[in-house]
């Protein structure tokens, strides 16, 4: 097991390194987005621009600039060119909002997905199953930001049931915290509820025909106990794998849209702004933050896979 973890961490570092290089190159290739010119202000003369360039070390060769930037990330000094705010600090400040959104949405979509998937599998073919299938398919087909706009317009504005967008810290006012996050949770969760419930449904239908389910019945277990302890338990393995990958992707950047529309000042919103203003330091910071989570959760999923399904021995090639 330890060997496996070491191998995967090395893989993770390699991937993160590759991503940091890619982002660095993408943004250094943009024509005339030279940060020095921008900082020097509107009617700066060449002398002032030259001074700003040397101060920011932008006249160094690219590799040197890249190394200094990487050093700044790990020492937490990375500051944005546009607004001179410390990037690491801003990301740190955005964490509560992003995590509240992602974790809350994850809990919502996993519970609903399991309930919907279980119901439509148990009542396969009947009305409940068909209704839930249609609902899931519609759920998969909706653009996240559009759903957010519609929910905000009808529920928050017209019906005034929910407050407007913006994040209320959990520590200050838990009730308000949840109240402000209900719509964002729903928006983020709808897509995954649709997808996961259908994956769970087809898995459960497969598992129901397995021999060990018949054995369980022959052991005199109750139908409900069989469905939950045996059928659901085994069908959840692929769903949990998917969850690991998707949760990483959502925390890593997928939440940009939801945070932007609901104006939750989390890492996603900060990422959106960083790109809007083509500001390299925050962008590298945010992308590394995102990629770290995606790769981290990929590894967690592989390790978790072994616990979920004892047949998988760690150290062999991770499941494709």
């Amino acid at each position, binding site marked *: 097991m330890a060997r496996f973890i070491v191998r995967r961490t090395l893989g993770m570092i390699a991937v993160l390194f590759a991503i940091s290089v890619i982002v660095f190159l993408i943004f250094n290739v943009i024509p005339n987005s030279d940060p020095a010119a921008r900082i020097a202000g509107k009617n700066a003369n060449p002398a002032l621009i030259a001074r700003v360039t040397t101060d920011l070390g932008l006249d160094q060769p690219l590799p040197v600039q890249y190394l200094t930037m990487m050093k700044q990330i790990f020492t937490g000094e990375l500051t944005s060119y546009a607004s001179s705010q410390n990037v690491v600090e801003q990301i740190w400040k955005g964490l509560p909002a992003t995590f509240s959104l992602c974790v809350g949405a994850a809990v919502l979509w996993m519970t609903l997905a399991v309930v919907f998937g279980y119901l439509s599998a148990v009542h396969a073919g009947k009305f409940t199953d068909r209704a839930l299938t249609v609902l899931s398919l519609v759920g998969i087909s909706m653009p996240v930001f559009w759903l957010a706009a519609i929910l905000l317009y009808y529920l928050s504005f017209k019906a005034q049931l929910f407050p407007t967008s913006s994040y209320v810290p959990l520590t200050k006012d838990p009730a308000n915290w949840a109240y402000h996050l209900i719509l964002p949770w729903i928006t983020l969760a709808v897509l995954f509820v649709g997808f996961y419930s259908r994956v769970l449904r087809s898995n459960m239908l497969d598992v129901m025909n397995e021999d060990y389910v*018949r*054995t369980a019945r*022959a*052991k005199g277990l*109750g139908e409900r106990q069989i469905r939950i302890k*045996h059928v659901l338990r085994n069908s959840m393995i692929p769903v949990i794998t998917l969850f690991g990958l998707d949760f990483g992707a959502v925390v890593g950047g997928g939440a940009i849209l939801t945070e932007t529309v609901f104006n939750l000042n989390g890492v996603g919103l900060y990422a959106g702004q960083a790109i809007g203003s083509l500001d390299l330091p925050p962008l590298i910071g945010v992308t590394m933050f995102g990629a770290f989570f995606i790769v981290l959760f990929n590894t967690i999923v592989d390790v978790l896979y072994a616990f979920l*399904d*004892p047949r998988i021995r760690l150290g062999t090639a991770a499941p494709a």
Partner: protein
Amino acid sequence: MMLSVENLSVRFATDGGTVHAVDDVSFELAAGEILAIVGESGSGKSVTAQTVLGLTRAPNTTITGAVRFDGQDLTQLNDRQLRDIRGERIAMIFQDPMTSLNPVYRVGAQIAEMIRAHRDVSKGEARDRAVELLASVGIPNPERRVRSYPHEFSGGMRQRVMIAMALALDPDVLIADEPTTALDVTVQAQILRLLEKLNAERGLAVVMITHDLGVVAEVADRVAVMYAGQIVEDATLESLFYDPKHPYTWGLLGSLARLDQPRPVRLAQIAGQPPSLIAPPSGCRFAPRCPHAFEKCAEPPPLHDGDRCWLDLEQKRRLRDVDGRIGLRRAVAT
């Protein structure tokens, strides 16, 4: 009488039409007796066995007839009542041990689960009982192996676990649905020894479903031969092997490779295919493949004193003799 099946019929409604898997099957199982049900695949023997424990109940199934056990008709019990029988009074083991155990739970836990489903015992007690059971079926150092997962056992060992699980609540009847088919010969023998020991020591009545006459010869007290959903012969072991009454049985015996005789050029086999169960032929179902069929066979023969065939006893004994062995000779231009 421990268990008696009376006129059991099982029909499945499928897209292609209604499949008459089991058609008017009746047999009895005495306490401590080992009854073998033998037949080709698709003859309905597994369906019959599973229907006894109500495992074939499904929206598209219609089950008629009765399964009398301990004064109750199991076919009429609802799911709740049936659960008190399953595992407690009648236990079952299946053909493929590789897939019959849940891969993600430890073996001990699966056994304990069954015990706690029927007895109000603590987890610890159930676990200890599981260890005893594993020992009783001959699994080495059971204290450690109880914590192993199914994929950490060989086929034979896993079948032993299944048996251990079946014995957990000291049932009266064990239904074994082709328990040795998926195992290689040496392991097969061990499993059969184990079943015989359990039958002898505990008086456990066993219904052994198999298509292997070798297994039948080794363990069975009585044998029922099934063909196309019907029992065509019901006899004691001796009379089946030495005084078989039904041509199909002759065909089965004839196609056995014999050590005590010169190797034939080609093994004899029964011509033709088992009939479609969607539109079963009227009259004797074996008639299309029976070289001795005659007009009477157009009428469906009843099962009386152990045999479902219109030939009289004398004709049977004469026609079954093929070159000094029991066999089903190709129709001679008689």
